[in-house]
């Protein structure tokens, strides 16, 4: 294990967003991670990296290997092969340092039933040399009134929020959140998203495993789709969605006739065809903008514009042939 040789991403994995990125420091680097349990291959070959300050999503159907990937990344499990670096540190060899800079929210973790919320917070806060301001955290997540309550009296959603607070309590440089909003009601989910964005704005790198497409689209700068232990796609949520559907479509009614060559010359456009008086343009990127601006240069206005862009969910189904399940299941 620990082969430090950098090779190309494994088959099926592409990283378009990274190619365009200005090289910034990588907070998380995973290369050719492999982990088996007996004969079961949980993670076959997973590689990706997460830039500092990025919100990175790991998506995949149940049993895809998401949680195992995360558990290896935070040092809970030793990989069979491959390299993992968190801020340049090996989670196995530099365990102590890694645990100081990484905050974790695990799917199946619990706290003693008869401890009060305040006592748990106080204890976890003491584990770190520069802990976060607990009052602020629990206030944002609506736990302020629960400080005196026993852990066992908390609802599922409150436990989940406490677990997010505890992941952030050490002011981590990297926060790894496994299904952080599962079991939360829509309002609590949005509050949690706001908090995560605020935390990121302070420069914290966030890695989240999620089932929720809306969450990934709203929060993630980039996502990795994992299926059967492989990264099947890697990119921005919008980019993946566009790629999987063969691109975006803009359908419009031109105010005046124009030469098709005007639009096919645009880098964003891949195809154009006519549907009666309407024109349908297929392409990528900021397609609608590009088309409208180009038409404007020849004095043509696009009327009745309809955009058809696919979602990450479409991309997911297309790439894996599976649906993401909403909640209540274990991967």
């Amino acid at each position, binding site marked *: 294990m620990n082969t430090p040789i950098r090779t190309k991403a494994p088959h099926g994995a592409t990283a378009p967003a990274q190619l365009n990125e200005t090289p910034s420091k990588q907070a998380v680097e995973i290369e050719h991670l492999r982990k088996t349990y007996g004969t079961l291959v949980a993670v076959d070959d997973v590689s990706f990296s997460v830039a500092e300050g990025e919100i990175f999503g790991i998506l995949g159907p149940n049993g895809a290997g998401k949680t195992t990937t995360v558990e290896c990344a935070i040092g*809970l499990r030793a990989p069979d092969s491959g390299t993992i670096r968190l801020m340049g540190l090996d989670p196995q060899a530099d365990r102590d340092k890694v645990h100081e800079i990484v905050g974790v929210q*695990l799917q199946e*973790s619990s706290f003693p039933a008869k401890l009060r919320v305040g006592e748990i917070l106080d204890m976890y806060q003491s584990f770190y040399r520069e802990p976060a301001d607990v009052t602020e955290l629990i206030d944002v997540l609506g736990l302020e009134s629960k400080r005196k309550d026993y852990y066992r009296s908390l609802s599922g959603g409150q436990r989940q929020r406490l677990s997010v607070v505890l992941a952030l309590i050490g002011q981590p440089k990297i926060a790894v959140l496994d299904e952080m909003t599962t079991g939360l009601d829509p309002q609590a989910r949005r509050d949690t998203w706001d908090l995560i964005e605020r935390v990121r704005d302070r420069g914290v790198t966030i890695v989240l495993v999620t089932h929720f497409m809306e969450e990934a689209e709203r929060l993630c700068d980039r996502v990795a789709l994992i299926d059967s232990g492989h990264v099947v796609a890697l990119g921005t949520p919008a980019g993946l969605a566009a790629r999987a559907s063969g691109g975006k479509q803009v359908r419009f009614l031109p105010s005046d006739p124009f030469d098709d060559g005007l639009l096919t010359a645009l880098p964003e456009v891949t195809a154009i065809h006519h549907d009666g008086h309407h024109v349908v343009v297929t392409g990528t990127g900021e397609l609608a903008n590009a088309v409208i601006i180009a038409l404007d240069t020849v004095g043509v206005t696009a009327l009745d514009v309809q955009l058809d862009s696919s979602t990450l969910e479409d991309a997911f189904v297309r790439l894996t042939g599976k649906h993401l399940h909403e909640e209540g299941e274990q991967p």
Partner: protein
Amino acid sequence: MSLSVLAQPRVPRAAFGKIVRNEARLTWRQPSGLIVGVGISLALLIIFGEIPVFQKSSASLGGLSAFDVYIPILIAFVIGVMALTYLPGPLVSYREQGILRRLSTTPVPPSWVLAAQMVVQASLMAISVALLIVVSVVFFGASAPKNPAGMVLAIALTIAAMFAIGLSVAAAARTAGAARGLMAAAFYPLMFFSGLYYPTQLMPTALKDIAHFTPLGAAVEAIQDTMLQGFVPVAPLLVLAAYAAVFGYLAMRFFRWE
């Protein structure tokens, strides 16, 4: 689970104190072991103290009274109950519920919880033992321990041996239910050989010989000799030390944090 982990420089020292405090709170909030260990032993002490025949010295007991003989047995009982219920129970359920797993993602090693448990339990044992001795001396006219230092040594080794056995139970049991079963299976024979049900002095030779080599049998022997006779017996102390070493090794070797 050596305590040298406490010397790790990267975690604030205050953390260990906080863990100890929370473990103490949990013990206090789930007092079944306290009630059984301290409550029953104290109740038995008082009952025995009130029975006149227990106060008569008997030749078959080497000139001691039944009451005298029972004080060390009750001390062993308190230590046995607490080590076998309080120590493995919470640890196994912490493991089952992912509490240790969650801890192992923080700078604090999960072994600190184990160490904290031992600090809390050993303190409670010390208080209970002191209470038993004080009550027996003050209210029932028992003589003060003849060799206090030797007695403290005997009690400390008893605690170490029983902790090691309790931790081995925690290492062997996958679930809290299995831990309870194992503890019960270990507890009754151990208590039998301590003489709780029938003083070892009156047992047939074969059983007496076995008792010498059981942890609580050796514990009672060592505590009786130091407390009532005033000399420090080497053999039972060695037996206790051997249990502490062997089971301590097994616990360390096989304890799983997940």
